[in-house]
């Protein structure tokens, strides 16, 4: 029995090493003094400094954050509405079809999503003249759509758990349905909204493929800039940048997970 659990631990450890060794080496090399990526030249934060003096990187980072912020916000609004309709109003048969449709972007290859959105934008421009060209707006729209799919999954699971009778109780005490939504439903599902927002935000920050399809001149996101830089050869400042991004993303994921856990515990206590 004991040797078996030892074996399991070993396998688990190997798995973790496999997952995190590349990331760890990237983090370590981001503090490398040497300009050569593969040679250790002593500890330094030089590349972090260079990074913050590079206008291209800073500009792209700002664009990425803007896109992520706006698309995450749009995504949770759409995600909330979609889950609300699905959980509260849809008939049984329509329900499974609709929920399948809304979660399709989760399993669809990104290349296909990107390509189809690009075609859509081009066609729309031809027919209604909007959006004029591709850039910030089209990336935000694209990220909102797939962010909304993730958000809907997170929010739905919270809505399903929610006790319907508390909404009825509010109505019974004189609140009209819209009022009930803002007074009761929204606060109760708020933790799910926060984690959905964080999830959509990080996904948008991460995305390279879809953004590449739908972006235009002057709207290069951070992943796009990194990717083009790396193609010219790996430079140490990319390591530093990647380390910062990893830090931010893990922070987001951890906060989202903690939020979900907390709200779950609270709802269990009730």
């Amino acid at each position, binding site marked *: 029995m004991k040797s078996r659990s030892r074996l399991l631990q070993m396998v688990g450890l190997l798995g973790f090493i496999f997952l995190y060794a590349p990331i760890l080496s990237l983090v370590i090399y981001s503090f490398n003094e040497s300009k050569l990526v593969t040679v250790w030249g002593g500890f330094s934060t030089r590349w972090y400094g260079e990074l913050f003096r590079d206008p291209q990187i800073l500009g792209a980072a700002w664009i990425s954050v803007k896109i992520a912020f706006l698309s995450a916000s749009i995504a949770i609004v759409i995600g909330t509405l979609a889950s609300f309709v699905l959980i509260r109003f849809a008939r049984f048969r329509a329900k499974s079809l609709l929920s399948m449709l809304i979660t399709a972007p989760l399993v669809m290859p990104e290349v296909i999503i990107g390509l189809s959105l690009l075609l859509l934008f081009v066609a729309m421009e031809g027919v209604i003249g909007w959006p004029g060209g591709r850039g910030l707006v089209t990336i935000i729209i694209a990220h909102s759509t797939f962010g909304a799919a993730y958000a809907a999954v997170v929010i739905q699971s919270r809505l399903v758990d929610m006790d319907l*009778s508390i909404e009825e109780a509010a109505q*019974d*005490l004189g609140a009209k349905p819209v009022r009930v939504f803002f007074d009761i439903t929204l606060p109760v599902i708020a933790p799910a909204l926060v984690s959905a927002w964080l999830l959509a935000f990080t996904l948008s920050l991460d995305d390279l493929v879809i953004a590449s399809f739908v972006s235009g001149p002057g709207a290069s996101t951070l992943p796009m800039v990194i990717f083009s830089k790396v193609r010219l050869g790996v430079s140490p400042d990319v390591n530093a940048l990647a380390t910062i991004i990893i830090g931010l993303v893990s922070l987001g994921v951890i906060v989202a997970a903690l939020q979900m856990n907390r709200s779950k515990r609270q709802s269990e206590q009730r």
Partner: protein
Amino acid sequence: MSDGRPESDDKPWTDPDAVPFLQVKNLTKRFGAFTAVDSVSLDVYKGEIFCLLGGSGCGKSTLLRLLSGFEEATAGQIIIDGQDQEGVPPYARETNMMFQSYALFPHMSVEKNIAYGLKRDGLPKAEIATRVTDMLSLVQMDGFATRKPHQLSGGQKQRVALARSLIKKPKLLLLDEPLGALDKKLREETQFELITIQESLGVTFVVVTHDQEEAMTLSSRIGVMNAGQIVQVGTPHEIYEYPQSRFVADFIGSVNLFEGRITADHEDHVIISSPESGTDIFVPHGISGVEGQQVALAVRPEKLQISKSPLENLRNTMKGTIEEIAYMGNESVFQVLLDSGKQVRISQSNRMRTTDHTLTWDDQVYIGWNDDASVVLSS
């Protein structure tokens, strides 16, 4: 098992001129092909505590939800204080409901939960504050104003839910199994509190319960439900002493039923031949039945007498053997196997001097009842 409520000075339901506060007329609710509430008609008068009593799934909650507006009736009419409620949404009805699950708002403090209804009415802040404070002390939750629902015990949640449903002084308060989650002792205390609160505020209560003792203690009248229908309405005393059907007799308390056939039907007495009990049973009053009709005779366990010597002063007696004795503190319950093969239950108060304490297992005994202790049930 007594009518614990003080006999109120007036019994509006006996007054043909009294106008009911709540009128339900032929109310029906179908879910698809399933009829959850089946042509229910009810009159509830102002200031009553009216209990809807019935087994699980008989449609009690559905009936309450129809009254509060959460379900739309398939057919029929609801009139509250003279106003037809057809098409009136829940938030516009002058009813408040205490939910089976309490349904407290988890993200609001006790105080905010209770104040919610008043806020929606747009009352001034100062008035809301005083009314909430008053209500908190009424339900004895003074120290808990700032707690969140998940920091409360089941009994405390129940009080908050009650306070929240009372704060708007609704004309009609609907309570769905208000005490279901409480332990026996707390439940009994709270039952009396409910009565006190109801009397001090003068609100009309409709209470749903599946606990017959609770219905007996709380209510001015009880409506017994079965399979979506109201099978009998009456005071706790009437329901207990004069059940009109086998279902009601069996549902309220325990009862011995003797199946039989009317063999002689006279003005002043009836003879029922009951092969089950091995004798002919004498009933000292006429009934609205016909000769040959199949009926059941109901006798409560506490109305049966038991003795080792023949009960010569009684007209209806039978012989049997004691099978089981259960000592329950204030009473003892005997299970007797009659010579005819039927089992009957007899309960004897242990405080009565007439109780024979020497009775034991396998004793040959006589059982019997006073002429007026039985009820004839034809349905």
